Every structure is written in C-alpha cells, then in structure tokens.
C-alpha cells in the first residue's frame, strides 16, 4: 500500500496541472476572503459564509471526482493497470494506496492555498475567528476525502478517461446540483410523517450534505435547518461530533472501498 501511496503522491505532485490547481485554490480562497472581509471581521455563519461554502461545494467535489476517477482510468488506458496485474498486489492495497496518495497530494495543495489566503487576510487587517478558519478547513478536507473516494470508486468501473469524466460530471450533477430538487420531488410523493426521517437519512447518504451540515452546526447555526433536524443538530455541536465524523467517514470509505475492490478484483480476473 505504501508503495502505491508514494508513487501516487510523486506522480500527482510532478504534474504541471497540480500547481495550476494550487494557484486556482489560492485565487478562489483569497477572493472569497476579500469578499467576506467587507464586513471587517469574519466569524460565525453569515450570508457570505454561506456563499463561500456553496462555492466550495461546487468546485471541490467536481475536481476531486475527476482526480479520483482519472487516477484509475488513466492507468487502465496507459497500460499500468495491466502491468500491475502481473504483480502480487492486493487490490485493497491498490485502492487504499491510491486514496492515501491522492488525498495527501490534494490536501497539501489545498492546505497551502487555504492557509496562505488566511494569512493574507490577517496581514491585510481582517479579523478572522480561529474557529471559523478551522471549521471551514476541516469541512474542505472532508469534502476532498469523501469525493476522492467516490471518484476512485467511479474509476474502478470505467475503462477510459472520457468515461471517467462523464461519470464524474454525472455524479457531481446528482450529488451537488440537483440534490435539493431531487429530494423535494421524491419527498413530495411521500406521506407527511415520513418526510422528516427521509430527509435526515438523505443527509447521511450524500457526503456533501453531511459535511455542509457539520459546518453549519459547528458555526452555531444549526437552527437554520428547521425543527425536523433538532434531534441531530446537538450531535454536531458537542464533542461527540468527532466520533460521528469518524464513524461516518469509516462507513463511507469502507463501503466505497469494498465495492471498488470487488470490481477491481473481477476486472483483474478477466
């Protein structure tokens, strides 16, 4: 696993596009901080924080889905997958090595851009609360981790990068773009008492919604979700939240990893 991890890290960080993305993050986050800074200080969940979160929710998952799915699909295309099949390599080591290497590379690039932007904000005289910075940072890292896992899962099912791109955009469209519409359409067909539990369950199905819920609750704005979520919000406001995140992350990655490993094993055997 560590060999794949190290190779993934090196291959990713040596591509010019990696640094182009780092600059993109730096630009986007700095502009968002400047936007937020028009109020003079940054803390809590404001309408501008909501805008920042929405922009992060649009771009981070899309990039991570593409990076993750290309990571496997690219190897299917260029012959490395075939060569690795002639090695005594466990598919679990392959999947988790790739996830680890990609996550390290993407997290390093994002962290550099994020903390540089925060530093720029602080230097220019903005007052940014530490809690706000940390919560937004953890929210972004969780998005990177979850959507890289989904991307790798998609990559395990495709054969070319074109297919990977199509699946990634499709996944992004469902999980990010039309999720609220989808939920409204589906729940409108349900009896009223079922709507609340279905909405809460749906939040756990979509990692983007889960991380958004975490961020809003940690910025003490859980009430904006409405009365239906009152039983869940305290889970995210107290210390137990880290246990919830760990358990949720473990379940999501184990589920996606398990399915991907199953598919990769089948592809290897054929």
């Amino acid at each position, binding site marked *: 696993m560590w*060999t794949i991890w190290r190779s993934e890290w*090196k291959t990713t960080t*040596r591509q010019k596009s990696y640094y182009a993305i780092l600059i993109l993050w730096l630009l986007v986050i700095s502009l968002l901080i400047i936007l937020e800074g028009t109020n003079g200080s940054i803390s809590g969940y404001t309408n501008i924080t909501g805008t920042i979160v929405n922009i992060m929710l649009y771009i981070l998952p899309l990039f991570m889905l593409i990076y993750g799915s290309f990571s496997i699909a*690219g190897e299917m295309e260029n012959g490395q997958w075939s*060569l690795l*099949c*002639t090695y*005594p*390599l466990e598919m679990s080591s392959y999947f988790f090595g790739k996830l680890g290497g990609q996550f390290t590379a993407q997290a390093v690039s994002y962290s550099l851009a994020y903390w540089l932007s925060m530093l720029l904000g602080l230097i220019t005289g903005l007052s940014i609360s530490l809690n706000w910075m940390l919560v937004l940072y953890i929210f972004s890292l969780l998005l990177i981790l979850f959507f890289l896992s989904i991307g790798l899962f998609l990559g395990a099912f495709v054969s070319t990068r074109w297919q990977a791109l199509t699946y990634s955009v499709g996944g992004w469209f469902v999980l990010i773009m039309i999720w609220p519409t989808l939920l409204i359409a589906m729940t409108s067909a349900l009896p009223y008492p079922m709507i609340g539990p279905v909405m809460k369950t749906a939040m756990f199905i979509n990692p983007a919604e889960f991380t958004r819920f975490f961020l809003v609750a940690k910025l003490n704005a859980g009430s904006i979700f409405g009365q239906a979520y009152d039983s869940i919000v305290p889970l995210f406001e107290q210390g137990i939240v880290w246990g919830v995140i760990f358990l949720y992350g473990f379940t999501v990655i184990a589920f996606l990893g398990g399915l991907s490993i199953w598919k990769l094993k089948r592809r290897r*055997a054929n």
Partner: protein
Amino acid sequence: MEVEEKESKLDGNLVMEAVSKQYKKKQALHPFSMRMRAGECVVLCGGNGAGKSTILNILAGTSKPTAGKVILNGIEMEKDKMAYVADIGYMPDEFLAQGEMSVREFLWFYASLRMVSEDKIDQIIMQIGLDEKKQEQVKALSKGMRQRLLLAQAILSDPELLIMDEPTNGLDPFWINEFIELVQILKEKGMMIVFSTHMMDVAAEVGDRIMFIHEGKLAESLVNDGKDIPGFTRRLLKHYRSNES
C-alpha cells in the same frame, strides 16, 4: 505414488493445457497446449493479429482463458493467482505510464512490489546500460531505452517464468546483441522464457523452440539444436513467409 510422480513431472515446468480464448464471436486462440522445462526458451512467431499476444497475455495473467489451464511449478493460475504471478516477470509491448518518475524511482516502485533489495536495482540499472540516465525522467528516454527499462522491471526478481511481448522493438543492433546475451545468461540460470518477435535471427539465436502461430492456432513448432544458426535463421524465414501467405 502416481500423483507424486505426476506432480514431480510438473515441478519447475510450465504447462498450458488446451488453453483457448474467445472474444464474443471471434476465436482469438484455438485450444493451445505447451510444456516448458527450466532453462528453456520458446519464441512465438507469426504475423500481426496471429494470436501471439493472446498467448502471452494469458500466461501473464492479464487475460483470462475461456477454457483450459495454466500451471507453473505446480501452481494453477486459476486457483491461486497471487502465488502464480509472484513467480513471473512480464514485459509488455507498449507502456506509456509513470513518465514523471526517474529511471531509479520507476524500478524502485516495481522492486518494492516484489520485495527486491535496493542493491539489485542498481545492479540491474548497470546491466541495462542506464546508469548515466538513472536520475532522468522516464518520459525523456528513447524508445529503445524504455524497452530496456521494461525488461529490467521484468527480471528484477529473477522470476521462474519471463514473458516478453516483442522485446526487441526499438532496440538498436548493439542492444539486440546485448538482449541475446542476457537471454542466454537467464536461460543458464534456469529461467523459462517465452517471447514474441518478428526477428527470425533473434529467434534462431536464443529460441530452443520456435512456434509459428497463425489465425489463433499453432501452425508449426520447430526445435532448434543450436548447431547452425545462419541455416536455422533461413529456415525460419522460409516458414515465416509460408505461414504469412
């Protein structure tokens, strides 16, 4: 007793038994059988699309046979793939990945997947003549150098069975000669070698058996006694032409 005898006969051998491959309606390989002993070299010859790569891919475990079985040192591929692939080395025909890695990093990657020591990497780099290029990126290498690097990757762990798909493609005459010498050394070590080529002189120099594949079938199998290489090369060329037409 009979079982023991049978197993000992298989030990150290490669056995392909009635192996075939079908892609939808196309029969890429008709039932094909072959046995090899330690230190033997089999060369597969034939035109493009004859079925040489299909045989090599099945042997390498990258393509599942539709029927038949492959046994190496008593290990049946289908039953224990991980143990089977641990004993093979494979050099693919085309490989465009890991261009950002240096020559040494590339070999380190594959060496660590097979638990091969760091010393062996440096030794192999010297052997394939890439010592001066070991810090250069793989994508900066010429086609011939990349072929040598792929060969190094395949022999890093001294496998029992070495499978190579057109290994002399892109090599200049000097390195073709070096390749021939290397194959002779590996044969002396007891390695079983199977490779495909269109170069009949190379086949005559190192092949103990030359198999002509045509339309997914074994057309002819010639045994090389190694006594008259130029004469055997001419004979192979004649057979190559007759199988092509």
